[in-house]
């Protein structure tokens, strides 16, 4: 399990995160919510060691991150980044790069790596694209290939930074369903989301961030009852029980009063 304790981090000497303590538990989907600039993406980067910590600590299965090499971190946690390049390579080749943390000299992918990469592509429903160039794929298909690359890393924890942004509703739901499946397999899945109703409906636990702090963390029900969404996002959160489970929607606060 990966956990942070009183974590401080930021850019160019300015702390964006200010004392975040959070555990990413195996077997659950944790959604990170918060207004723009509150430090959600910064938290993921700090946990993965992509930016310098200025205080606190990050532990991987009890081991301080500082004791782990970059490859050892990559064997424990995968990261689906927010901004993604589109190289002119095939989908299979792209997914094979997920095996890079396990390569040793002369750094050639073997049969086992190909099998894992193909299995990851099949997992996201992209097996038929393996020989197509990534640039030829639609946004949703490309997102699937990137996710397959993260899956090919075969890590205990997967961090996804805004994985549903720019996706149509079908691909959004497919992405969330994959996240749920991964959690059922015992992995920790951490998603940065802007869609509050989607997060409340699909996640096991919600962490709400505000100004670099953790404003609240709990089950969707606890978050709904706490009123933290209303306070942090300046909206009015509503819920209704439907045959498809409890559904959420947000309205402007002034219209609510």
């Amino acid at each position: 399990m990966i956990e942070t304790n009183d974590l401080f981090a930021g850019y160019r000497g300015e702390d964006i995160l200010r004392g975040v303590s959070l555990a990413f538990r195996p077997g659950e989907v944790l959604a990170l919510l918060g207004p723009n600039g509150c430090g959600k993406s910064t938290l993921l980067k700090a946990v993965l060691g992509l930016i310098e910590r200025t205080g606190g600590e990050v532990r991987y299965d009890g081991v301080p991150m500082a004791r782990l090499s970059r490859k050892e971190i990559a064997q424990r946690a995968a990261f689906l980044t927010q901004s993604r390049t589109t190289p002119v390579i095939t989908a299979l080749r792209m997914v094979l790069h997920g095996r890079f943390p396990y390569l040793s000299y002369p750094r050639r992918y073997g049969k086992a790596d190909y099998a894992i990469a193909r299995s990851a592509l099949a997992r996201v429903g992209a097996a038929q694209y393996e020989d197509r160039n990534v640039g030829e794929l639609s946004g949703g298909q490309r997102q699937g290939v990137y996710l397959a690359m993260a899956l090919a890393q075969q890590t205990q924890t997967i961090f996804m930074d805004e994985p549903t942004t720019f996706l149509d509703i079908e691909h959004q739901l497919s992405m969330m369903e994959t996240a749920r499946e991964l959690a059922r397999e015992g992995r920790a899945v951490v998603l940065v989301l802007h869609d509050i109703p989607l997060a409340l409906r699909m996640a096991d636990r919600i962490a709400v961030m505000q100004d670099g702090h953790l404003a609240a963390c709990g089950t969707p029900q606890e978050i709904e009852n706490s009123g933290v969404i209303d306070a942090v996002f300046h909206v009015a959160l509503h819920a209704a029980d439907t045959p498809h489970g409890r559904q959420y929607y947000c309205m402007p606060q002034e219209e609510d009063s």
Partner: protein
Amino acid sequence: MRSSQISSTDSSKVLLLLPACVLLSAVLSLCVGAVAVAPGDIVSALFFGRNDTVAAKIILYTRLPRTLAALLSGSALAVAGAVIQTVLCNPLAAPNIIGVNASAGLAVTLACALAPMSAVATPVIAFAGALAGVLLVLALSEMTGASRMTTVLSGVAVSNLFSAAIDAVVTLVPDALSGYSDFRIGGFASVTMTRLAPAAALILVSLALVMTLAQQMDILALGTQTAQSLGLAVRPVRLALLVLAAALCGAAISFAGLLGFVGLIVPHMMRRLVGEESQRLMPACAMGGAALVTLCDTLGRVLFAPYELSVGIVLSFAGVPFFLWLLLKKRGGHAGD
């Protein structure tokens, strides 16, 4: 051919065709000139030790150094361009555009103004100059968190500054650089085997080392954060690649002068022909650059014979329109690119 349509088979065909292009360009370079030499004479001179004929003397003492210089400088500059574009994640970056060529040129010019240099020292000094230039652009890029365009623009500014400094040194110390115009444009008229040998060694070693880092370059091309999250130690790999790119540029410039465009156009051409996988792209750039520069040098010798155009001029006339045609073709294929 649109890059997005490159199949593995197409790419393999190109990689099989390129060695033939290199061989053909080398044979043409050896055969064609003020005195035509038959291919049979080339074989006799190169492989059977016949050096007693006029043709053999022309080949061994004039054409061979020139052909090797063209092959090596083309390979070196094209691969250096591809490496710099990958490391800076910037398709507009090239050794001549971001100031690497000019900083290597300035180092050579300054060294020549201060003291006459040996053949061994020239590539080393050019390498040091190129390294300083490439590290300066990297530092500017990292310090300012610069966008792709800012990186290129800062490189253009640095390039102009260094070019002005070269002009200033040559103005103040006119004897600093013999054949100054050849050096600025780029050419092989004064290349000898003695001058070429140390630079050739540096180029061959650097090319081999770049090939060993192909896998890392592919990871780097995915973007810094993705590369780091896949376990790549981005900073050391980036630095190693830039040092190798500087070695390639510096070594090439030490005997070929400030050859432009090769480092920009060849990587783009080859990406369209073989895709972006470094294991294919780097050998393709090495061979494509070698063939292009050698052919342009040969054209420069025969087009207006007995006058000779420097290879840099021919490269600009032949290479740039071709590059523009490729860009326009791409735009036609990808509306809204």
